[in-house]
């Protein structure tokens, strides 16, 4: 149940080794035509959210594609977390056994790109007249480039090139037990703020003499739980103007704003108002059992949220009846909301046979068809990445039927999808560079460590954060990321070094004088000149 964390540290470390050992490959060139007389077998590494419906959609997509292209066989390999895919891709780049098509994140592609031409730049394929997006020889109703949501497509650009196509998009949502909020005497604001969340969370920590929480009458109540603490830190910094990183890879996260955020986290962890997934468990489990008020998780986790959630890890008898509100994450500036854009993208790996790459591209492109986009988006609080799908009658009908049942039309799920659709312009992504995945991990780990330290009654002060920053810098090798970019100013030499170098220089000068003296002396002797 708790396997994803095992790959996090590896993710932090592998970027440094990059893809050593990978064979250099010629850049892919689009063939003049696709050879339908030859058989091609390609592999597709896909990620699902431990959701059998999603698995079924992948399988159906493959079957439909193979019907259209009988000479292409697609082998599906399923993963349930991105970290494992990333790890396996890195391993397979070094052995030249990468998959053909792979669900991924741009952060990860930045590492894959350290292997020469390992990932196909898609710019030319996008616009290829015959096989490009909406191309004349494509055997399905493919979207043209302009029909992909521009914000989502832009996220797939690394440097000057597109190295992926977006597959699904989501953001984070705050799933709220509105019943409890109102029971505490509060009304949800139009835009959720951090101050509001902290205040209500603190109000919910009151207990009776027996140790039961007044709000729910239970022994357990964690009013505010954050699933992805890396996202939490990243979004708090973005909203508040605190530094995170530059496109060049310059690390800015170790700053006073970050420290202030962590002080706030510590303050509320101390009262028991706040915890995290890694420390306590899935926010959904607490929310649904009436043990949490604010559960922040991906919109892609919406089917697990709420009194009538279709998916759940807790037994039915633990469910508590309440009204679920789905709101964007808390903000510092209500006039200028900001939230992260996330969700899987698809990249195509380069191979020796350009025909095989073209076959891979055709399959990747098939994942953008309305059939796949709409079917997959309906499984969770995702949204299709093409306007073609978003504007379709079928998708609009789906959204309009919110709450018709607690399965396909589960209201919390569709509210989450609408949240994404309504806030596309407020989303952002973090800079992508080789090592950005490690920085992301460090961002979250600082919240995790601070929360754990508070629970262990350690003293939280400036010295604590100085040590924490140094630990993160070292553990995730963030100082080495900086060295990859522009040359780093080393500062003034230590006094000891200056003295040492001066003495060495003096000795060399004396040696030079001695040699010259010897030469002159020999010359004088040669010419029998008395000195």
């Amino acid at each position, binding site marked *: 149940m708790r396997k994803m964390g095992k790959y996090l540290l*590896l993710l932090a470390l592998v970027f440094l080794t990059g893809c050593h050992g990978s064979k250099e490959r010629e850049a892919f060139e689009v063939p003049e035509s696709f050879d339908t007389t030859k058989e091609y077998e390609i592999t597709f590494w896909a990620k699902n959210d*431990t959701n059998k419906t999603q698995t079924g959609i992948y399988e159906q997509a493959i079957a439909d594609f193979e019907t259209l292209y009988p000479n292409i066989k697609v082998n599906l390999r*399923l993963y349930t977390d991105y970290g494992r895919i990333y790890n396996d891709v890195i391993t397979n780049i070094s052995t030249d056994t990468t998959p053909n098509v792979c669900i991924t994140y741009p952060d990860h592609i930045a590492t894959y790109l350290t292997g020469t031409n390992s990932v196909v730049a898609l710019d030319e394929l996008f616009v290829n007249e015959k096989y490009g997006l909406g191309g004349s020889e494509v055997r399905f109703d493919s979207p043209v480039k302009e029909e992909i949501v521009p914000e989502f497509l832009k996220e797939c650009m690394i440097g000057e090139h597109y190295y992926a196509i977006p597959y699904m998009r989501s953001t984070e949502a705050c799933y709220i037990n509105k019943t409890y909020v109102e029971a505490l005497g509060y009304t949800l604001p139009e835009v959720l703020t951090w101050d509001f969340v902290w205040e209500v969370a603190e109000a919910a920590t009151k207990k009776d003499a027996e140790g039961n929480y007044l709000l729910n009458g239970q022994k357990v109540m964690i009013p505010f739980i954050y699933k992805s603490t890396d996202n939490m830190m990243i979004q708090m910094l973005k909203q508040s103007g605190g530094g995170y990183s530059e496109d060049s890879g310059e690390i800015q996260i170790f700053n006073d704003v970050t420290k202030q955020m962590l002080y706030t986290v510590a303050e509320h962890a101390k009262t028991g108002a706040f915890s995290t997934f890694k420390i*306590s*468990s899935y926010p959904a489990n607490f929310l649904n059992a009436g043990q949490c008020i604010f559960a922040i998780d991906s919109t892609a986790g919406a089917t697990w949220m709420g009194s009538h959630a279709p998916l759940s890890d807790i037994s039915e008898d633990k469910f508590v009846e309440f009204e679920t509100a789905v709101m964007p994450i808390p903000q510092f500036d209500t006039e200028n909301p900001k939230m992260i854009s996330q969700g899987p993208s698809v990249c195509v790996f380069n191979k020796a046979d350009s025909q095989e790459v073209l076959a891979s591209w055709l399959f990747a492109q098939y994942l953008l068809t309305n059939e796949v986009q709409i079917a997959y988006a309906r499984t969770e609080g995702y949204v299709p990445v093409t306007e073609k799908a978003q504007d379709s009658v079928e998708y609009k009908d789906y959204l309009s039927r919110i709450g018709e049942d607690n399965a396909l039309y589960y209201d919390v799920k569709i509210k989450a999808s609408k949240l994404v659709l309504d806030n596309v312009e407020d989303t952002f992504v973090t800079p992508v560079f080789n090592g950005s995945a490690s920085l992301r991990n460090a961002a979250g780990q600082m919240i995790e460590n601070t929360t754990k330290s508070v629970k262990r009654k350690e003293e939280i002060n400036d010295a604590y954060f100085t040590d924490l920053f140094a630990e993160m810098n070292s553990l995730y090798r963030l100082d080495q990321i900086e060295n990859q970019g522009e040359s780093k100013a080393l500062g003034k030499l230590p006094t000891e070094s200056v003295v040492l170098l001066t003495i060495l220089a003096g*000795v060399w000068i004396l040696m030079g004088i*001695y040699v010259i003296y010897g030469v002159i002396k020999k010359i004088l002797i040669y010419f029998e000149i008395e000195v």
Partner: protein
Amino acid sequence: MKKLLALGLSLSLVLSLAGCAGGNADAGNEANTENVVNTETVVSTEEAADTEVVADDVAVMTYAEYAAAELDSKVVVETYVQAKQSWWEDKATVYTQDENGAYFLYDMACSAEDYEKLTQGTKIRVTGYKAEWAGEVEIIDATFEILEGNYVASATDVTELLGTDELINLQNRYVAFNGLTVEASKDADGNDVAFLYNWDGSGEDGNDLYFNASINGQTYTFTVESYLCDNTTEVYNTVKNLQIGDVIDMEGFLYWYEGVNPHITTVTVK
């Protein structure tokens, strides 16, 4: 002049060495700092033999003391390895048990070399923090050292405790369930099957196996955890060949996830 030069070279050599030593001294200080940190949590076997107080004034605990300790408090226990679940980047997850109770060690600091030494029965002293995740009480952020001693727990039959409140008192122990009947699970297409890959059938060969089994009219879910027992193990393949209605005996560890979630290591079809 030669003397002057010799003096200069000697001086530069001495200062160079001093410079190098100075650099090393700094590094040495760092290393010492690390050692100081480590000694707060780990002491050598010889030292441990002399005293029971091993870390920040926390004495080695009995199981009862460990069970009574508050969550998030520092704990020190001496226990015996029963099974290893996983190792990844110097972190090991291990089932351990002594004569009185069991301790689940999650992501304990452990080199690859030391992981090989953690064979079944190996005695270890563990220093870490007591934590709870989704109902599973465990020791996290732990370090360990290997001690002299060996103990392999026999399986405690907890069949009659299934569905009772007492079962949690045996959390993480090596236990046995006898005489249960395999019940149907629903696969992705709604068909009755004897097991699922992942909890909802969304997985494939190599993923965790989930299966249901009943006794006394109650059905319980059991798991073959793929990190603990992968698809090359006998138990994994036995479960893949189960038939609905099979009567089985099982052994495994009494893991917890939002309720009892036994990690099965042995299945015998009767």
